[in-house]
């Protein structure tokens, strides 16, 4: 009897280590994680919650998806009945009414346009159409150089899109037909923020909203942070870093690998630089921005990508609490000092 005491203790210790509650937290019968996926905003969006009662989870998630649908109804340039389409179809150089949602997004976008001297711009819809990136069928070769040059010649820059106060209301003026609204660089992030706000108002403390890779989180995953990988721009399915996110924050990546084609050995991607009228040539393959809101992260990731790593870091100094990780076209990874270490 005495001789078997030690092995019994060893086995009991190992059994305790394996079966203690912390390790059993995720057992099938008590998994606190729920995920719901829907097609929304022209993307696949998933809302994952942690430790939320079933009835509350169902209601809150449905409301969050409805909020994203509403954002899409106003901001999508693909929907003929959206506010953006209405403004794009309206005569140029005439003030058009703005609903509050669109005004909020435009004000944020215009501030960033000014900060980047117009390199980030919400009025590039005609240029995107010219390059074919808005078409159902992906382009295979660049447009003729003379059409791009003609666009550049008539591009009014920062003056292309103006907000004007008329009494209590604010209206928008598009300068000419080379300007049209495309909120692709900011809209999904705004949608993710709206979903997060709806979840929080409903009482959901821990959630992750993933709108086609634009990630917005609330709280944490129990005692652990939400773990978000950053896509390797040159290796589909691979990652360059993993970030643990807690609290009210967002991680958004822009890169040259989601929509692109190769023509004469050059990569033509969908992030266009209004300075040249062509895909941005900043020697960056991707930029990931960590920011308090997804809309800001979304817009800054595009702006940083367009202006390049050096000017991008200078740009971020205007936005306290915002950090970046970037990958160059040579595969070199850089990051700002406060970006979480992988």
């Amino acid at each position, binding site marked *: 009897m005495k*001789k*078997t*005491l*030690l*092995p019994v203790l*060893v*086995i009991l210790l*190992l*059994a305790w280590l*394996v079966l203690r509650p912390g*390790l059993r*937290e*995720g*057992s*099938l019968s008590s*998994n606190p*994680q*729920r*995920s719901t*996926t*829907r*097609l*929304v905003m*022209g*993307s*696949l969006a*998933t809302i*994952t919650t942690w430790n939320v009662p079933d009835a509350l989870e169902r209601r809150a998630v449905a409301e969050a998806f409805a909020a994203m649908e509403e954002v899409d109804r106003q901001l999508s340039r693909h929907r003929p009945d959206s506010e953006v389409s209405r403004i794009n179809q309206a005569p140029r150089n005439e003030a058009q009414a703005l609903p509050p949602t669109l005004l909020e997004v435009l004000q944020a976008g215009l501030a960033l346009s000014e900060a980047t001297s117009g390199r980030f711009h919400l009025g590039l819809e005609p240029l995107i159409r010219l390059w074919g990136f808005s*078409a*159902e*069928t*992906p382009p295979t070769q660049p447009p003729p150089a003379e059409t791009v040059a003609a666009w550049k010649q008539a591009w009014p820059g920062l003056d292309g899109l103006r907000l004007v106060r008329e009494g209590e209301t604010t209206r928008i003026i598009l300068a000419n037909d080379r300007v049209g609204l495309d909120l692709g660089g900011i809209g999904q992030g705004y949608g993710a923020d709206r979903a997060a706000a709806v979840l929080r108002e409903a009482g959901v403390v821990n959630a*992750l909203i*993933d709108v*086609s*890779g*634009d*990630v917005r989180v609330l709280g944490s*995953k129990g005692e652990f942070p*939400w*773990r*978000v*990988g*950053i*896509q390797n721009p040159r290796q589909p399915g691979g*990652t360059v870093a*993993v*970030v643990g996110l807690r609290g009210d924050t967002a*991680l*958004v*990546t822009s*890169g040259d690998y*989601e929509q692109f084609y190769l023509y004469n050995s050059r990569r033509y991607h969908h992030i266009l630089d209004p300075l040249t009228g062509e895909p941005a040539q900043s020697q960056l393959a991707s930029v*990931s921005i960590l920011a308090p809101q997804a809309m800001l992260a979304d817009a800054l990731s595009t702006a940083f990508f367009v202006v390049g790593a050096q000017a991008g870091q200078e740009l971020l100094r205007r936005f306290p609490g915002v950090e970046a990780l970037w990958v160059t076209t040579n595969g070199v990874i850089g990051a700002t000092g406060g970006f979480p270490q992988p």
Partner: protein
Amino acid sequence: MRGVLFSLWQRATTPMDRWLVLGSVLGIIAWISAMLQAQPGSRVGIFQENRLVATLPLDQERTLSLAGRLGEVRVQVEKGRVRLQEYQSPRLIGTRTGWIQRRGEMTACVPCGVFLRIEGVPQAGEVAPFDAISR
């Protein structure tokens, strides 16, 4: 010190005890390893225009055809995995994604209005390296 511990161990155990401890340790290691492997899912949800139109077990071979927005979309189940094949989609993202089989994995043809999702979410202890991928 090591010698003292070894001597204590020898005095406190019989050969049978040692085999018992060894077997238990190996068993527990195997159990933890199994926990850490991503578990394959057992059913796939097929969604069209955000409505669940079918749920198929992954252990039964089956091919299902859907009328997507852009034309036919085919769902093929075999050997515990499933894939989506679209034919008219401009970028064929769903077809390029290939087979999926683990809980929570998804594949979609957004322009077709169709997506597949393996039922369930990764369990604690499974290899679910990320809750999302920023891209």
